[in-house]
Each structure stands twice: as C-alpha cells, then as structure tokens.
C-alpha cells in the first residue's frame, strides 16, 4: 500500500520554501499575477522574510500543473519590483519586504476618500452597492490603463517603473 504518491524519489529534499501557492481559477486574475500577489501578501503578513527561498519553478509547476513560463513571469515581476532576486543555479530568494505605506500617509489617503469621493458619491444618491461597483470598475480601468502601456509583447522585459506595493 503506497500513500507516498506525491513524493518523487528524485527530488526527495523537503520543500525549500515556506510558501505554498494556490490558484483561484474563477477570480479572473491572470495566473502569474495571482502568484505575485500571494508572495506580496505573504511578505506583508510576515510568512516570508528576507532570504527565504520562493518555491522552485519545478515544484510550482508540478503542484499546480501550470506553464513554467507563468511562474518565471511572476518571478521576473517580483524581481522587477525589487522584492526577489534570482541566484543562478539555486533559485529565487526574497530580497526585501514591500514598502509599507506609513500610517500617516495611509490616514491621509483614507481621509480624502471619506470626506471627498465617498461623500460626493453619497450625495449623488449612490447606495453602498453602487459605490462598491463603481469603485471596483474604476479600479479595474485604472489598473488596466496603468498596466497596458509598454506591455511586453510576449515575455519580454517589464515596464521600467517600480511600484510601491501598498
């Protein structure tokens, strides 16, 4: 009776990374972006720290059954954001935590949202659902507009702009 079906005798080393990726195929978020977001999330929550290794491409591919290029694209994006760095022959490692927006700045942003846009939307007669829908749709537009210019054709270099991860 065998239950060790998952274990490949060839790579019997323990998983190298504290992170395990999951995929939500109904979220509409591209797969590589889901991987990027999960790393960012893990960094923010402290599951991943500087120096930790990200899951090896081979392991991600074997567990999620996705295209290796998707994983590489996600890791390139993380490198580009300065969050991870590749070490030849070893893998990709966490280099820095995302810049946390400081509390003051966050409070200011929140204030301008509440007394500004939200107040105007409510005055115009939008209820909570309408406000949420409008905000989400605007955010999607914003994201698309931000991501489209200089979008690589295929798997080329990413746009040359560093974004703070809020």
């Amino acid at each position: 009776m065998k239950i060790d079906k998952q274990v490949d005798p060839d790579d019997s080393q323990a998983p190298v990374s504290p992170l395990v990726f999951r995929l939500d195929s109904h979220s509409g978020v591209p797969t590589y972006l889901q991987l990027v977001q999960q790393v960012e999330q893990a960094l923010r929550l402290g599951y991943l720290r500087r120096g930790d290794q990200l899951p090896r491409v081979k392991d991600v591919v074997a567990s999620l059954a996705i295209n290796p290029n998707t994983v590489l694209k996600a890791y390139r994006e993380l490198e580009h954001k300065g969050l991870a760095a590749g070490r030849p022959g070893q893998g990709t490692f966490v280099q820095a935590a995302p810049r946390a927006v400081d509390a003051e700045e966050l409070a200011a942003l929140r204030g301008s949202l509440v007394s500004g846009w939200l107040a105007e939307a409510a005055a115009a007669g939008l209820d909570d659902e309408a406000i949420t829908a409008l905000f989400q749709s605007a955010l999607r537009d914003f994201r698309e507009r931000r991501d489209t210019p200089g979008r690589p054709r295929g798997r080329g270099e990413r746009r040359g702009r560093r974004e703070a991860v809020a």
Partner: protein
Amino acid sequence: MNVIETSGLGKRYHRTWGLWDCTLSIPAGHIVALVGPNGAGKTTLLHCSVGLATPTTGRVSVLGRLAAGSLDALERVAFVAQDAPLHSHLSVAAMLDLSRDLNRRFDLCHAERRLRSLAIPLHRKVGKLSGGQHAQLALALALARHPDLLVLDEPLARLDPLARHDFLAHVMTAVAEEALSVVFSSHVISELERVADYLVVLSAGRVQMAGAIDELLARHRLLSGPAEQAGRIGELFPVVQAQNAGRRAELLVRAAGPAGPPSGWQASGVTLEELVLAYLRDPSVSALPGPSALPGPAAPPALPASTHHEVTP
C-alpha cells in the same frame, strides 16, 4: 524556429475535406492549444504534422524545415494518439522494453523513474491500469524519447479531474526540465487556460485564429454601451461578436492599444473562453497574425464543393 509550419495544407478523405488551405507557423518554445469543435480537423492537422497522414495539397514541416514523417523528424517528435493506444495484454515493464527496442533513442531509466513516482506498478498488465495511469504510461513512453516536440491528441478527454491535473503536471514538469515544445488538441478551453500560451483555433477544416494568447487577449476588448450606437462602434472597430440585451449592446471587438472606449461605453478585457467561443460562433471571422494572412474580417474564399460539416461542441 517553427515547430510546425504548414502552407496551403489540405487533406481530403474520399469526398470530404478534413482540412483545407491551412497555413500556419507555430514558433518553438510554446505550449500550444489546438482547439475547435469536433470534426474541425484537429486530428487531421496533427496526423499530417507527425507523418501519420499524407497531405492531399500543400506542405507541412516540423522543427525547422524537417519534412513531417521523415526519419529526422520522427526521431525528434513524439506523438500520443487519441485514447493513447497501447498493447493492453502486455505488462507495463514489457511495454517499456518494447518501446526501447522500437526506438533509437529511449531513456528507460527516465520512464521507470517517472512511473515509480506515480506509483504505477511495472508488473501490472497495461489493460488493467486506470484511465489516468494508462494516459500517464503513454506520456512517460513519449517523454522517454526526449523529444523536441510533443504532440498530444485530446489527451485529457477521458480523464477525471484529478487525473487531468496529474497528467498536465507531468507534461509541465517535462517542459520545465527540458527544452520541449508541446502541441495538444482539446475542446475544453477552460482547462487549457493555465497551461497553454499559444492558441490555434480550427473551425470547419480551416485555421480561424492563431497566436500567442497574451497578444490575442490584448488585441480584443469587450465594449458595452447603448444599443443604438452599436452601428457606429462597428465602423470604428472590427466586431467579432455582437450581443444585444435591450438597450445595452455588448460588442467583442478587435482593438489594439490602450485607446479608451468611446464616451458612454465601457471597455473590459476578454477571457480566453469568451474569445474562443466568439470566434467559433462565427466561422467567417478570423484573426490570423503574420505576413501571410493579415488580420481582417474578410470572408474566407469559398470552400471546395463538399466540405466537412461542422458539429457544435
């Protein structure tokens, strides 16, 4: 290098054309999904590419300019046919031995290691394996030849969800480990989304759309707005599919670049499934990049007198 290149490829079965005027070049290094309704010509195209069928018209070459079916090509192309036919009365071990004897290049250790890691017993008769194990065995045999191009005809059709996942994971692991291009046919688009990065859509024996999936998605937009303005939008963008829901119209259009939608209209990205279904619904629209076939809504030339007829998926 192109892993598969065809020009004017056609294949006639008796009085029916299974494939007609197919011009296509698939670059190396991709995982290619070949999709289309049943009877669209997917198997015919794959069979022509691996040398199992002789084209009636046109040419097909693989891995650079190797003639499909030539010895050089056979050495470097591995093919798993629909339902992965194997000798069911042989044991797995005997099947491995047979494959080693029949192939000039066959990495027995590679296959055995793979089968062991999947807990497939080597002494079991092939006919007694589960559907998933059967498919995995066929795949292991194909990969043991260390091909440069792996061609799979409907590999997932008969597998349950877990077996599909494991099968795709096996293919993707091979891609991660070796420089390997994969072409596989399927009519289930949703399950290709995670793995494929290049798409070829066949419909009624013709290539309807081909290209890198990222680019195809970036070149299409879903516009929604007042129905009475739909006609005007149609003049601005090539419309692939139009749907009217009373006062609102939804148009799937080809639009390059980040240009915003006309005022009063909302634009959103399309999913792969929406895109493929829209094209399959209307076989007269096509999106074929490349110098030989510029994108455009032009109707295809008349098909030969008796065409294969189309069955909806």
